[in-house]
């Protein structure tokens, strides 16, 4: 059964701007999908539509058979607990420590203190930051900050992990570490959607590649490569 379905989805912005046009695709549970394309082709718009950060102009989106096309504002937090999101610019709360940033994702769903104290150290161990749990984000490197974000994204044990240019601000060593972490998370059963324009990363992964160009799907290959035009 498809975990994510985009059915003829389009998104228009004021001023007759078409961000994505007539997108139809399905992503199965447990897949690792790379969404590639040059900057401004609509990759991030698709992610925003998926996490209900933007309303859909046309078409329908289903997540685990739940039609989120016209999702109510009160339902958005429920959706966001099912989709972990990692962004290029980390989006950490700067006034909270590493532990508190990860714990916050659990606190918003009223998790009790015992549960938090058991889950957060485990997550920090997975991303290799258990010894830096008292640090504030500004005391960490870019790669470490991104790993905190991944730990936070996994706090709710989401079915889907979306990583939008997670290596965009990182050097090659840190980028490799992050991609390895994403592969590990996928091996545990989480569906991973990686949005990137990094050719080397995509080609090394040898997983499904969806190429977006000018808001449309250009190609979709199960063991694809990112071929620059």
């Amino acid at each position: 059964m498809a975990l994510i379905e985009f059915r003829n989805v389009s998104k228009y912005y004021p001023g007759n701007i078409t961000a994505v046009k007539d997108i139809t695709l399905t992503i199965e549970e447990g897949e690792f999908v790379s969404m590639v394309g040059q900057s401004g082709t609509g990759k991030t718009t698709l992610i925003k539509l998926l996490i209900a950060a933007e309303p859909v102009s046309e078409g329908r989106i289903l997540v685990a058979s739940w039609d989120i096309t016209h999702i109510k504002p009160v339902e958005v937090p429920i959706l966001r607990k099912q989709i972990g999101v990692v962004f290029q610019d980390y989006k950490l709360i700067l006034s909270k420590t590493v532990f508190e940033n990860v714990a916050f994702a659990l606190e918003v769903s009223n998790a009790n203190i015992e549960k938090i104290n058991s889950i957060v150290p485990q997550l920090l161990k997975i991303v290799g930051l258990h010894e830096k749990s008292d640090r504030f984000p500004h005391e960490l490197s870019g790669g470490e900050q991104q790993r905190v974000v991944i730990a936070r994204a996994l706090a709710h044990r989401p079915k889907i992990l979306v990583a939008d240019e997670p290596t965009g601000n990182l050097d090659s060593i840190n980028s490799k570490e992050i991609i390895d972490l994403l592969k590990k998370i996928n091996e545990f059963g989480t569906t991973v959607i990686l949005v990137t324009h990094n050719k080397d990363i995509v080609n090394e992964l040898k997983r499904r590649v969806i190429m977006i160009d000018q808001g449309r799907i250009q190609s979709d290959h199960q063991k694809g490569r990112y071929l620059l035009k």
Partner: protein
Amino acid sequence: MLIAIYRVFRFAGQNFWRNIWLSVVTVTILTLSLLSVAALSVVSTLSVEALSKLEEKINVSVYLKPQLKPSEIEDVKKQMQEIPGVKEIVLVTADDALQSFTERYRDNPLIAESLIAIGANPLGASLSIKAVSDQGYKTILNELESDKYKSYIQEARFGDYRRIISSINNLTDKLKRIGYGVSLAFGLIALLVVFNTIRLNIYTHREEIGIMRLVGATSWFIRAPLMVESVMYAALATLISALIFYPAIHALQPYVSSFFSGFDFSLVGYYAANWHTFWPSLFVGASLLSIVASAVAMRKYLKT
């Protein structure tokens, strides 16, 4: 539920301490606004007090005909007591009037000789009437001019009194209008300053709010700590304002005493007696204003 409330207060406390400079600026601006309102209250209290003291000084003196017998004088006094708006009537007998007159002019031999030449007490008794309020004098003056009292009253300079009382009434009305105008202007300025300070505070939290939404926080979970933080700002600003206010009015007291010479009015005493209504009102006002400003500012960032 309890754990959610605990977290709201913990996050509010963390926000306050970890953004200490932002908190200091917000509390400072709130304190200055509260002190402006408190200063306005002092001006208003002083003007109301000054006017009421001035009104206390006014009375209508009615000079009665010298030939009236003491029993007739008592009757007139009783009748006048019935006039609506009369607070009290003090009788100055003919003897008292003569004694006060001779004392006042004891250095003037011409007046003393004149009194000896007349032989008898030329002065009559008089009644000093005080009204309940400034409006009471109008009724009293109208009543005294009626035919009922014509045979008893020798002289009453009603016209002069009318002018004085009307001037005081005019002054009171003008001062009240100016007071309302100044209060409104100050209130609006304080309102705008506080509103924008809180908006700025929320603006600095905008990314954090976006991140909270991203990890699945409900609007309530984001709003509540920031609201509690706003109340913390208001509480601290009220406390600091009170700590500055009392020494300030204590320093002002000698000037107030010299202004109210002859009257006993303590500004410190007044605000010490009314602290339980004055400061809670300021705190509630500042809290409501901060909460509304936070809520309005946050709406924008809670949309996605």
